């Protein structure tokens, strides 16, 4: 009997668990450790944040799904990884701490033959003074944050209905943020909601971001064929902001959020202040802070994890300038180079470097997006890792054969710009590859035949349909495998 231990039950962890269970014979165990009792379809949190959806519509309880799927579930958080065991045993294990109310705070060692780290991000609000829902800004990163944000939005809408003018600031809350796409979706959904409630004329909406220009999204933007031109996504994005009357501030590192006021530094090193009545600012991400120890209980965290807490895998982490970055730097199998039975999927793996060109201001503050790892690539890499591990456990392969490099993978992304079945819109984007390859595609970095973007109601229908399809799949309902990652 072999045991596959999966840390995290997000998009990557759930995909890996279901596929591994499906591929492995029943004498092998699939064990999931995750601190939350509920699964959350995070992309729909932006709709919870405007009140279009309720938290119950974007979540479900994990325990019954795992029970019916023959997957062992511990509602706990992983604390440390011991790849070579400890002084008492050579079996690899992970120490977990229960979050399940009945066992709260209890710790346990769970041994493993294979480990997948799919713990996603730590929402690092502490990186910016005053940032976060416990302090002076709002968030839509979790369904509870989003629910609280919807109440704050209802509050400013109520004031607008009484005739008061309100300023709404939406964007990224630090110079190193990723996930601009999520903030972008929230921005346009708020704008749509204000129009729906007939108070748009009372609102000033400002976007703030660490992108060099609009439309970067942490992927250096993308080039598209449109109207006889090859055009950068910046043009389309600026067009949408202009059409919807949204002001934008780019190249910004938010350094402090105070009640009603945000202080930021720009790429020129100048400090600016904006006042606002509502601020939804996403935090930067880091790893969740897992520790690693050797057999003698010595700290070996730096052998398994990068300084930002993400797990080192088979990428090329050598420091090199932007001009020397190549697609081959990006990991292919997501296997730890140090411990061959450990893998990382989704946001948990350490990217070798950014995708957008790094920029630093005269005060030495880096202001550029870190690379996004969206749902589709997270799911695809998790599936490939699960298949590789199943092949190795069942003795079909001696090493991981399937690859899922973001340099050879495309992505489809639907960014909501207003939720309504007749009047809503979304930006539908496809790109191939995710990591630009300027050797293969010298002018654009990507294949123009597979890289596209358009805005329309059809995108909203697809986004809404995907919401149900992915929840259906994550619940392991019949034929879940026909829903692609």
């Amino acid at each position, binding site marked *: 009997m072999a045991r596959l231990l999966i840390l995290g039950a997000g998009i990557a962890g759930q995909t890996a668990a279901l596929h591994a269970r499906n591929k492995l014979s029943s004498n092998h165990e699939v064990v999931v450790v995750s601190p939350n009792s509920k699964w959350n379809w995070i992309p729909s949190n932006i709709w919870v944040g405007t009140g279009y959806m309720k938290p119950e519509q974007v979540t479900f309880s994990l325990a019954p799904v795992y029970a019916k799927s023959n997957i062992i579930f511990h509602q706990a958080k992983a604390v440390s990884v011991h790849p070579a065991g400890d002084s008492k045993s050579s079996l690899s294990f992970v120490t977990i701490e229960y979050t399940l109310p009945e066992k709260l705070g209890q710790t346990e060692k769970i041994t493993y033959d294979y480990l997948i780290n799919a713990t996603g991000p730590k929402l690092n609000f502490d990186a910016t003074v005053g940032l976060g829902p416990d302090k002076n800004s709002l968030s839509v990163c979790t369904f509870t944050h989003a629910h609280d944000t919807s109440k704050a939005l209802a509050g400013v809408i109520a004031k607008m209905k009484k005739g008061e003018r309100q300023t709404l600031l939406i964007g990224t809350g630090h110079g190193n943020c990723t996930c601009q796409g999520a903030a972008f979706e929230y921005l346009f959904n708020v704008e749509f909601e204000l129009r729906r409630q007939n108070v748009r004329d009372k609102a000033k909406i400002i976007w703030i971001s660490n992108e060099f220009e609009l439309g970067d999204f942490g992927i250096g933007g993308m080039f598209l064929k449109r109207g006889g031109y090859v055009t950068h996504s910046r043009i389309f994005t600026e067009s949408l902001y202009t059409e919807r009357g949204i002001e934008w501030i780019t190249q910004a590192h938010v350094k402090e959020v105070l009640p009603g006021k945000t202080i930021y530094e720009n790429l020129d090193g100048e400090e600016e202040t904006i006042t606002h009545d509502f601020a939804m600012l996403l935090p930067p991400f880091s790893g969740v802070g897992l520790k690693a120890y050797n057999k003698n209980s010595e700290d070996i965290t730096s052998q398994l994890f990068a300084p930002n807490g993400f797990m080192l895998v088979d990428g090329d982490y050598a420091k090199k300038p932007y001009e020397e970055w190549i697609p081959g730097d990006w990991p292919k199998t997501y296997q730890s180079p140090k411990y061959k039975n450990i893998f990382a999927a989704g946001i948990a793996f350490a990217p070798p470097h950014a995708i957008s060109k790094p920029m630093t201001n005269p005060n030495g503050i880096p202001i550029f997006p870190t690379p996004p790892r969206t749902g589709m690539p997270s799911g695809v890499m998790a599936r490939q890792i699960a298949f590789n591990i199943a092949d190795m456990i069942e003795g079909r392969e001696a090493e991981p054969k399937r690859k899922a490099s973001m340099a050879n993978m495309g992505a489809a992304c639907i960014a909501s710009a207003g939720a309504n079945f007749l009047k809503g819109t979304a930006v539908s984007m496809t790109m191939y590859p995710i990591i630009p390859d300027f050797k293969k595609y010298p002018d654009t970095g990507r294949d123009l035949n597979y890289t596209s973007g358009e805005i329309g*109601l059809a995108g909203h229908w697809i986004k809404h349909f995907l919401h149900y399809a992915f929840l259906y799949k994550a619940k392991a309902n019949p034929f879940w495998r026909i829903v692609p990652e």
Partner: protein
Amino acid sequence: MSVRKPFEQSYYPPVPTKLTKLFRTNLVWQFFRFLVLNIRMLRMIRKH
């Protein structure tokens, strides 16, 4: 929505015409685009 003022950031970007905006929510056209977008995404998925 926006009023374009010279040299402000919103002065320069292209803005959609009325017809372009109409097509974005025209049910017949959008049903067609729904099919096209799904095919496009399936092509992308098949590349994995």
